[in-house]
């Protein structure tokens, strides 16, 4: 039986399927992320008060901040489980390149965590009184922004692999890197409010996702090789 020609696409997809299978078995994390997001969406109007004009100013920012804050706790688990149970050692001793696996991990995290949040984001948008024509743009910008947050997140998760209280450290390390995504993510909907076209912000968001798509597998692979040789 000769070794089947290793096409990386097949390995990439099979690794995504594996990660989704693992995450779907522990649904508790995904439910807790919803809870987090809902909590933030509810807290802001409580603080700002029911007047719709005030909420309008803040609604986009609240949705995006909710998305970012809700994702951060789940980022750390992306690699932690596979590091402690030795799966990363197995990957390091197999012909599959580590970069493909890490790309698969961030995409599967995007599918498992961001897509459900985005599917339910219209409900959150209505809670905050967003107009209807803004919702499709919100979904588009959140999915692209969410993708680059996952790419940054995997770098952050790899940075704190093996650290003592690592999960306390993750927000401090990740938040400065997410600021551009927040600025242009909120910018997409804000420019609709002002009447400008949302495209420039959207294209910048796409540009960031592409930059992080290229950077993050290689940087996290370096970090994981450091962590494995610990």
């Amino acid at each position, binding site marked *: 039986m000769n*070794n*089947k020609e290793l096409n990386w696409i097949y390995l990439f997809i*099979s690794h995504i399927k*594996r990660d989704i299978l693992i995450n779907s078995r*522990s649904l508790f994390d995904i439910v807790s992320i919803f809870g987090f997001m809902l909590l933030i969406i509810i807290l802001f109007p409580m603080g700002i008060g029911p007047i719709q004009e005030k909420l309008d100013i803040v609604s986009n920012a609240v949705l995006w901040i909710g998305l970012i804050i809700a994702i951060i706790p789940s980022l750390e688990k992306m690699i932690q489980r596979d590091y402690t149970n030795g799966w990363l*050692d197995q990957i*390091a*001793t197999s*012909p599959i390149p580590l970069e493909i696996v890490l790309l698969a991990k961030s995409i599967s995290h995007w599918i498992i965590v961001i897509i459900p949040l985005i599917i339910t984001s219209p409900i959150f948008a209505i809670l905050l009184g967003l107009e209807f024509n803004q919702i499709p743009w919100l979904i588009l910008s959140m999915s692209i922004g969410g993708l680059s947050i996952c790419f940054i997140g995997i770098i952050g998760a790899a940075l704190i692999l093996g650290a003592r209280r690592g999960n306390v450290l993750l927000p401090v390390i990740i938040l400065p890197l997410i600021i551009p995504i927040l600025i242009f993510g909120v910018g997409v909907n804000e420019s609709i409010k002002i009447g400008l076209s949302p495209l420039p912000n959207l294209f910048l968001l796409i540009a960031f996702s592409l930059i992080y798509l290229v950077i993050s597998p290689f940087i996290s692979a370096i970090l994981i090789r450091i962590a*494995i040789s610990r």
Partner: protein
Amino acid sequence: MLNLKNLNIYRGSRIVFSGLNAEIKTSTLTLIKGKNGSGKSTLLRTIAGLTPIEGGEINQNGVNIFHAKEQWVRKLIFIDNKNGLSDELTVRENLLTWVKIKGWDTNKENLVLALESVGMQKYMNFYISQCSDGLKKRAALARLYFSFFNEVDFWLLDEPTNALDHSSYLLLQSLLSKFIKMKGSILIASHDKKSLIKDYDTLDIDKLRNVKTI
């Protein structure tokens, strides 16, 4: 023949080996003996390419194994006490995904045969989180069966017999002797006194070490 030429290996800032010279004969079983913390596992991890070498080199018949690391890594199976099994997946799924990343084809019969080789066919659909340590170790050892019809030269096993009961110990023995007959080489790090197969080579780390480290 795998020979290690004045090898320097560090774990973080701690010097584990300095100037280690050794020969490991191939197509036999080599038992690495040594006290706890003497660096047995580190040596295995270094041969598996996980821990970087600070100085010296490891060659197999003259060729430095890490010059073509991808080929070297493809031809070895490394199992340590962490087993590399995901708790949320079942025994069968774990084995399936492992074979996929190794790049071998995964038809059904091989999977069932592999599980039978370690007596795990009854627990095929158990989640790893439900399994005991012994079952987990056997689920990991099921991977060894795939080396009989794929190109594998080296087994690197770190204390494989710890959690095994007597019947699975015998199953492991048959796997080992079958692999030796196929000219494969096995490296086992263990302080388990009873030997696994009749004739085996030993490599005592403490005698080899010429630099006193902690």
